[in-house]
């Protein structure tokens, strides 16, 4: 039986790009269901999503932040009984045509979570120096804890199986969640792996990581990961 796949798109004021992203999902993988989590957008994001038939829209009444809106997507996937959930940004950076290859690796059982990574050899993505340094320190930290050779710990382009969906529905960090989520996956006894993808430049909106926040970002995530090492995560038991 084919697995039921849900694409989770968290969106906060993404009216410039969300339409294109949804359209290219329709073009490249029409067989997958889509849910957009509108994180209290003040612009036309929700109206644009409403134009697409069969795209579910969950509107948070006010802005909760990226972590909470992604988690809302995983809770939705959990409640609706999806086998695989794919996380994809609304700004058009993630190559939606690669979603089927992420899903295929999850289906094949390569790992519980497959990350579409920017840093593996074949990609031409060139981030700024500050961001590279920050992300490389974080990657090393995650690597020290998880020890799985994951190069792009901050990529939000991921496909998760049922066990990871259940874990994330229960535990998911508030802000800058991607790197810490990997530690949670590891601590829950699950496995993550990555696959190289070519990232596109942003189509609209602004990146959620601004330079001023970089220091807060590093300290917060490092502290969270350090504490997670000593936390207990109850493992998910499939009851279906």
């Amino acid at each position, binding site marked *: 039986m084919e697995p039921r796949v849900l694409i989770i798109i968290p969106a906060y004021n993404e009216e410039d790009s969300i339409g294109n992203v949804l359209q290219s999902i329709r073009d490249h993988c029409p067989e997958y269901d889509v849910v957009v*989590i509108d994180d209290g957008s003040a612009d036309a994001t929700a109206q644009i999503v409403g134009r697409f038939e069969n795209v*579910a*829209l*969950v*509107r*948070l*009444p*006010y802005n*909760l932040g990226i972590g*909470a809106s992604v*988690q*809302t997507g995983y*809770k*939705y996937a959990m*409640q609706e009984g999806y086998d695989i959930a794919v996380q994809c940004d609304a700004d058009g950076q993630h190559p939606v045509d690669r979603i089927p290859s992420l899903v295929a690796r999850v289906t094949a059982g390569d790992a519980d979570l497959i990350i579409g990574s920017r840093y593996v050899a074949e990609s031409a993505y060139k981030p700024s120096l500050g961001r590279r340094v920050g992300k490389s320190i974080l990657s090393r930290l995650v690597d020290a804890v998880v020890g799985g050779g994951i190069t792009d710990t901050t990529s939000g382009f991921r496909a998760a199986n049922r066990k990871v969906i259940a874990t994330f529905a229960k535990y998911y960090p*508030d802000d800058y969640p991607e790197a810490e989520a990997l530690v949670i996956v590891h601590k829950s006894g699950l496995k993550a792996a990555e696959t190289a993808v070519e990232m596109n430049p942003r189509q609209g909106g602004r990146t959620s990581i601004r330079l001023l926040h970089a220091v807060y970002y590093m300290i917060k995530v490092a502290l969270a990961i350090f504490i997670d090492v000593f936390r207990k995560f109850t493992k998910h038991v499939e009851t279906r």
Partner: protein
Amino acid sequence: MGEAPQFGIELSHRVALLTASLALLCLVLELVRRGYLKERYALLWLATSGVGLLLGCFPGLIVFISPILQVQYLTVLFILSFVFLLSIVLVFTVVISRLTERHRQLTQEVALLANRLKRLEKKSE
């Protein structure tokens, strides 16, 4: 500093301590009575005023503590009030964190239910 301090502590300081502690006690009890302050969060405030009253009634305690901490007796009062304020603020940040987590879960639940309701309405049309 006029006469020799009674029990090793200035009378005016003792009066001020007792008055402040009593005022705090009455204020906290009144806030609880009117329902502005929950009993569980009032406990630390009550403990603060309780210790204030205790030290005001038995100033010998302060005189006993100050040489242990190697500070003057007035400083003991400042240290104690600082410790109490610190614990109250710490407890409150714990409470705020718990409320944040609950309100996040509640908000997510509301959004998911609203989505479900919409789908059900569409289905029944």
